[in-house]
């Protein structure tokens, strides 16, 4: 019996507006509301809503035999609330079927795991609270941004109490080994590792509508036939996809929804196949060995490494400059600043600055609001400069600033005290008046 583990990533970043350097210090609103709303509405209508509807139908029809899992980033949830609340409702309906597992993730879909344990932890906590708030579900399996994983990240996740983590079944890590087994973390074997079968996953999310592909057209029957032909010892097939593969990357016209509708039926009908959530896989299967990942991997590009986000000097500078603020951020309680801080960490910003495929002619334009990585970098750094100015006025970075802030705090406290006393005074006077007037009535 083989388990088929379906997982979908749902994420939308808050894209920045064109933020010129003369805005620094003058204008503190960074977001392109129009683009964010338009994109969110488009993706919701083309992908999230119809796919959710389809999954709900399948869950009802197949009565508990069909299972899927999601990780929905905090920023995607915020955008749903702002622009497409019906998407949240449809996810809530899905949650009620009991066929769905929600995974843990960083709130901002951030790269914090590569920089700071404390922030990473905060991001995860924040996200889990959100998920609990919406779906009444405490995630037990973790999925890091873009499947980024290393032994160390895994060990930290194990320490935080998660029992499994998802990552890419990268060739250079697995070598001759197959991704179709359950593995464990090399440092802490209590953490189970699910490795993505990138060949079969990408057949759906990337190659499905490619008419030059030798297997075109792909049908559910054909796909399940492939699954059935896999080595009979293998125990799990991890299909991890970006959720917008349905209806966005693969358009409705390509027949992707027919494929999705027929796939579960065929899997359930197959004697050797069944659906399982990541938690079930982690609990029910026996791990075959530890997997050693000394350097972080991800599911991006041919190299399966971090170069899409931290490949060039610009990306590294932006990343360093951002997390240089983390000490100050720890002391910052301002709501707006914390919100912007979350939005600034989104990995997409760094992805826009990638020069990797700028020359390769590969079409990434659909996902990138900037015409060049340089523009993306300048824009981000301008935003960050303004954010830093604001943060400094809240949480100063040096001695004098600290002193000024302390004095400000004293003044604020005194003000507060005066206000309170004034209120007291007013109350007492009123009380006196009231008792006077009562007295006169008497």
């Amino acid at each position, binding site marked *: 019996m083989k388990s088929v583990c379906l997982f979908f990533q749902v994420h939308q970043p808050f894209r920045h507006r064109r933020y010129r*350097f003369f805005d620094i210090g003058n204008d503190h609103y960074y977001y392109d509301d129009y683009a964010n709303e338009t994109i969110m509405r488009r993706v919701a209508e083309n992908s999230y809503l119809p796919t959710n509807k389809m999954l709900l139908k399948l869950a009802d029809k197949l009565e508990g035999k069909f299972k899927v899992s999601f990780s929905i980033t905090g920023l995607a949830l915020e955008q749903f609330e702002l622009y497409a609340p019906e998407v949240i409702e449809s996810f809530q309906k899905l949650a009620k079927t009991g066929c769905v597992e929600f995974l843990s993730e960083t709130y901002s879909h951030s790269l914090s795991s590569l920089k700071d344990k404390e922030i990473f932890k905060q991001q995860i906590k924040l996200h889990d609270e959100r998920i609990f708030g919406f779906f009444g579900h405490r995630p037990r399996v973790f999925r890091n941004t873009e499947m980024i994983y290393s032994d160390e990240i895994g060990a930290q996740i194990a320490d935080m109490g998660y029992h499994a983590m998802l990552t890419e079944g990268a060739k250079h890590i697995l070598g001759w080994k197959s991704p179709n087994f359950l593995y464990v973390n090399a440092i802490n074997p209590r953490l189970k590792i699910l490795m993505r079968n990138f060949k079969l996953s990408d057949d759906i999310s990337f190659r499905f509508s490619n008419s030059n592909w030798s297997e075109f057209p792909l049908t559910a029957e054909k796909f399940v036939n492939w699954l059935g032909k896999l080595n009979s010892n293998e125990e799990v097939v991890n299909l991890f996809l970006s959720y917008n593969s349905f209806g966005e990357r693969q358009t409705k016209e390509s027949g992707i929804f027919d494929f999705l509708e027929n796939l579960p039926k065929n899997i359930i009908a197959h004697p050797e196949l069944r659906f399982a959530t990541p938690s079930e896989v982690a609990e029910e299967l026996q791990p075959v060995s530890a997997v050693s990942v000394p350097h972080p991997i991800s599911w991006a590009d041919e190299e399966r490494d971090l170069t899409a986000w931290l490949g060039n000097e610009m990306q590294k500078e932006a990343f360093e400059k951002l997390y240089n603020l983390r000490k100050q951020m720890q002391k910052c309680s301002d709501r707006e600043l914390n919100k912007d801080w979350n939005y600034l960490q989104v990995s997409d910003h760094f992805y826009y600055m990638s020069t990797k495929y700028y020359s390769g002619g590969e079409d990434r334009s659909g996902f990138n609001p900037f015409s*060049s990585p340089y523009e993306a970098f300048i824009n981000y750094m301008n935003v960050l*400069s303004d954010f830093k100015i604001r943060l400094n006025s809240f949480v100063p970075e040096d001695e004098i600033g600290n002193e000024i802030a302390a004095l400000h705090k004293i003044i604020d406290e005194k003000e507060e005290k005066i206000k309170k006393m004034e209120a007291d005074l007013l109350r007492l006077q009123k009380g006196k008046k009231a008792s006077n007037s009562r007295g006169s009535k008497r």
Partner: protein
Amino acid sequence: MFGWEFPPHISGGLGTACYGLTKGLSELNDIEVIFVVPKAFGDEDQSTMKLIGANNIAIIQREVQFDDIQKKIDYFEVNSSIIPYVSEDEFWKLKSGKYSRETKFVETDEGFKIDFSGTYEYNLLEEIKNYALVSEIIARNNEFDIIHAHDWLAYPAGMAAKNVSGKPLVIHVHATEFDRSGGNVNPNVYSIEREGMEMADKIIAVSNFTRNTIIEKYGISHEKVTTVYNALEPQSKEKKPLLKKGVNEKVVTFLGRITMQKGPEYFIEAANLVLKKMNNVRFAMAGSGDMMNAMITRIAELGITDKFHFTGFLQGDDVYQMFEMTDVFVMPSVSEPFGIVPLEAMQSGVPVIISNQSGVAEILENVIKIDFWDTHAMADAVYGLLNYPSLATHFKKGGKLEVDNLRWINSAQNVKEVYKSALNL
């Protein structure tokens, strides 16, 4: 090959491009080049090709062919300072400026000078015709397979050579009258250009931008026009003693003629925006041209004269000195067929901002591209390069690597392909 200038006696990018291409062609072992210019000074680098000065030829040949030899010969020597990138009007200005220096000329024939300047417009076109006459003689006395003429001043010479020899003609368009005049097209020049293009068997354009102009504005069939991008000579290794930057401030540079098509006013507006936000930066405008006075006035109006400097026309080593001091180079051209200066800047390791309206934008990747009119984007790019160090680092490395790979031999290879198709090989 017919051109108008050759290093070291150059006034613009054309001479450099001709030299680079000739050198590139000579590296392909099956091509030999005879290069004809109106006047050879004798100190040109002839290691890679044979250089013929029309002035030298004329003396011998004309004795046989023409009656009024003496006058014609004088004429040609005077005409040697023709500058291919200027319009007739500008040429007159430059020419009148040169009289004071060329005292020899003034001394020998006072009356001729008056005659010359009075009817100048007519003379420029006549000179071109005379150059064409000499080219006929050269064509008769030399063995060659193909004729290659650079820019409109040399088209008539190329056409004449074709008429005499019957060999195929390739015309190389470095700029069109539309680029030079900014829409105010001189009909005489246009007709020469068009005649040349129509008679040519093949046309080479320095960018797709120029190719489109040729197809749309001159009505040439697109199959006849091929784009071959220019390249850059590797920088000589020897380090000259460098001037020290006198100020501990960032320097942003504009380098080019201060004329409408180079967009100097946009550079100034962007400078003004940057200066509002940061103080430790200076802007330099290197070059001269008919808009210089207007630009100085604008600087004064904006009240940024203390941070904005005019260097005048720079040449040779001065250009490299300027780049050594520069932190950001901007080329905000409104219309630029190619634009070799950003390549030179990149070679010197200077981060570069260019307009989308320049031909060189078609090939460069390690540069920031903006629209010339978008002064906000320009200012933002300048500010970014000055304030976010990794961006400048990225361009210094990447830019240098990129231009080092732009070799003339590759351009020459492409030119050779054009020759082959012109010869039906």
